[in-house]
């Protein structure tokens, strides 16, 4: 019983320390500030790629660290990324049908 309890407790110890989460939040805030700066500063041809890249970095940082996917069981990642991948595939195909990318 004690072994079962210990292994149960161990599952709660994955992840990061509070200081680590605060660091992640500060990085996310800095990226958001950089995103907003694109509204005021002309980034030229880098405007769109940089915004999309920053969006993806923020997305995966929240999912990996705040939602613990990086540390948790891989089955949870599979459940989420299957849904995400399916959504991207279906809607990119739908947008392409409507000639959105042309």
């Amino acid at each position, binding site marked *: 019983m004690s072994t079962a309890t210990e*292994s149960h407790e161990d599952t709660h110890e994955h992840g990061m320390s509070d200081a680590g989460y605060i660091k992640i939040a500060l990085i996310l805030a800095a990226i958001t500030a950089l995103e907003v700066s694109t509204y005021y500063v002309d980034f030229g041809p880098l405007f769109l790629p940089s915004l999309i890249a920053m969006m993806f970095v923020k997305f995966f940082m929240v999912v990996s660290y705040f939602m613990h996917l990086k540390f948790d069981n891989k089955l949870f990642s599979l459940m989420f990324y299957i849904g995400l991948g399916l959504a991207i595939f279906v809607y990119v195909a739908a947008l392409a049908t409507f000639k959105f990318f042309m």
Partner: protein
Amino acid sequence: MAETATHSADHAADHGHSSTGISNNKLAMWLFLGSECLLFGGLISTYMLYRGRVSDGPHPEQIFDIPFTSVSSFVLLMSSLSMVLAVTSAQRKDYSRTNLWLLVTAILGATFVGGQIYEFTAFYREGLGFSTSLFSSSFYTLTGFHGVHVTVGVIMLLSTVGILKKNRATGDKAESVEIVGLYWHFVDVVWIIIFTLVYLIPA
């Protein structure tokens, strides 16, 4: 041997875990969030298709208040930090601090929803009704659906605070907080996409 395996499976089931050791509730939440990707994917794609179809109504660039929405985005982003701190507090069984961080998260979420209501009111006064154009319909549907999700999240957070305070939680309290947290963070990541694609990238 078979008896041991049955006992182990029964023990796992008692704790809401499958025989693989994975929490059924957590797995269900991840499955739900995977399906939510399809819902928001449809709404975002529809907006992307129709954002240039403004008819006689105002254009997105004419009405969007980027500084205001940036502050709202920052508020929602920081609510993800308070949420994750609530989860770590619950894992340490420090429930008074868990309740505090859950309340902070709920307040930040309510602030975001308040900002969205203010924004919608301002847009409506500037002539952007729901049926003004395809742009307005798809914009209000997308951001409205997200706002409803945030509102549901705030209700979930306040309910969790109430349940923890009255000590009515059944099963693993830390896991209950973590599952509410997963939903909350998902609402945040959806806004990360909406903020970039809808507000920052011009039509």
